Structure formats: structure tokens, C-alpha cells
């Protein structure tokens, strides 16, 4: 498994993962997510387009991260178009919770919409 992380426009982190995500490899993915969260980034796009296999350990990490960014007023979306990986999201009932989209542009648009809604609902002064 390989993970590449890049930050875009100081608000969105894109984690592109390839390979197999299981109990052996998922901790590395967790470390990359933790590093992103430690930087204070609250909007995360996880691109699983090149992931061939996923199990409950990786799902648990994604669910935990989604909760974390939501608590910070951010959001997480997942890009996935492989049938066998989508099936795991479907069966576990996590597709909606994790904002799973089949196209990267779709998930990017979703996060941008959520962010715009969050900004608009905040106090205009942005202060306390």
C-alpha cells in the first residue's frame, strides 16, 4: 500500500492510496491521516481509486477520521470506483457516512459545497 498526501489551497488535503488496505497496511494510512489532522486541516478527500482491497480495519480508520473532521466543522469524502471495494462500503452501511463518490470531481464538488455551506452559516465576523 502507498499513500500520497498533498494539501490544496490551505484547506483541502487529498490522500491518494494504492494497493491493499488491511490490518497490516492500514496503520500507515492512519499515520498519514493523523499527520494531516495534526496540521489542523478539517477537509479531507481520500482517493481509493487505486485500492484493490479494503477491510474493516481500514473502514474503522475512515469512520474515525470522518467523525474527527466533522467535529471540527469539516468533512471527509471518499473516491472509489472498484466494485469489490464499493461492495464493502455498501454492506457495512458506510457509503453515505463516508460520502463515497465514484468520481474525484464529484467528491471534490461535494466537499466544496459542504465548506461553502459551513462558511455561510458561520458568524460573518468570524470572531468569538
Amino acid at each position, binding site marked *: 500500500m502507498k499513500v500520497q498526501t498533498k494539501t490544496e489551497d490551505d484547506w483541502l488535503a487529498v490522500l491518494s492510496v494504492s494497493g491493499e488496505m*488491511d490490518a*497490516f497496511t492500514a496503520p500507515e494510512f492512519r499515520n498519514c491521516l493523523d499527520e494531516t489532522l495534526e496540521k489542523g486541516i478539517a477537509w479531507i478527500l481520500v482517493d481509493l481509486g487505486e485500492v484493490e482491497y479494503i477491510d*474493516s480495519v481500514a473502514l474503522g480508520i475512515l469512520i474515525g477520521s470522518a467523525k474527527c473532521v466533522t467535529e471540527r466543522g469539516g468533512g471527509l469524502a471518499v473516491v472509489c470506483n472498484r466494485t469489490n471495494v464499493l461492495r*464493502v462500503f455498501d454492506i*457495512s452501511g*458506510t457509503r453515505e457516512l463516508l460520502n463515497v463518490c465514484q468520481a474525484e470531481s464529484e467528491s471534490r464538488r461535494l466537499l466544496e459545497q459542504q465548506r461553502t455551506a459551513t462558511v455561510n452559516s458561520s458568524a460573518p465576523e468570524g470572531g468569538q
Partner: protein
Amino acid sequence: MAETLPVELLIPCDPQYLSVVRLVVAGIGGRAGLTIDDIDDLKVAVSEACTNTIDHAFADGEGAPQPATIMIRFAPRQGELRIEVEDVGQGFDPDRVPVRPDQPPSLEGGLGLYLIHQLTDSVEVQSAPGSGTKVIMTKRAAR
């Protein structure tokens, strides 16, 4: 395929061997006539059963054999593959396992056994405190 002797795979109780187990599932599943989708399901189910063993079977370290291992037995028949995942760890009381196959678990935990139930045609869990655990799964080819 006539019924043959099962194939046995003994691995260390270590997650780095999960990918090896999935490779064997794919190879034997193909021989049993399972489809690619069936094999994908079974790869997740068997991997989850092994992960549960790694996480729980020898968790307290007491009485753990050195080295701790997992035995996986593959019994292929035409159109069907039965797989047993067995350990000699601390075991548990199956009546207290908080997972029912028709009920999605809490997202905080218990996903593994739920996925096993959902992705196979039959599952049997044999365990008792102090007596190890055996998970028996069967997957039949989609028609």
C-alpha cells in the same frame, strides 16, 4: 472436482501474512469454480476472520503458544469452498458475541464478524473460553 483432501495453511499470528492468505483463497476459489465476485467476498471474509484471531485470540499473552499461529483449512468442492480458520488461543463464549448476521453492528466495532456473515453463505463459530476458536465459512458459486 471430486472432494479432495483439504489444503492446510499455517501462518504466524501476524497481519503481514493476511495478503498471503488472500492469495491462497483466490487460487483455491478459482479451482472450486467460484466466480471472481465470489472470491472477492471470500477474501474479505477469511481476512476478517484471521484479523479477529490476531486481535483477540492471544490478546492477554497468557498461555499463548510460541509462536502463536493460525491454521486455515480449505476444502474445495465443485461450486463450493469451505474454509476453516482455527486458533488455539483463549477462546470466548459465543453466546456473548454481540453480532447477529441480520443486524449491522455499531460502527465502533464488530464490523469484521458482520462482514463475514454478509459475504458468505454459511458461518459457524465454535469457541469456548480456554479452548481456542474455529470459524467455519462456506461460499457457494453464484448461479
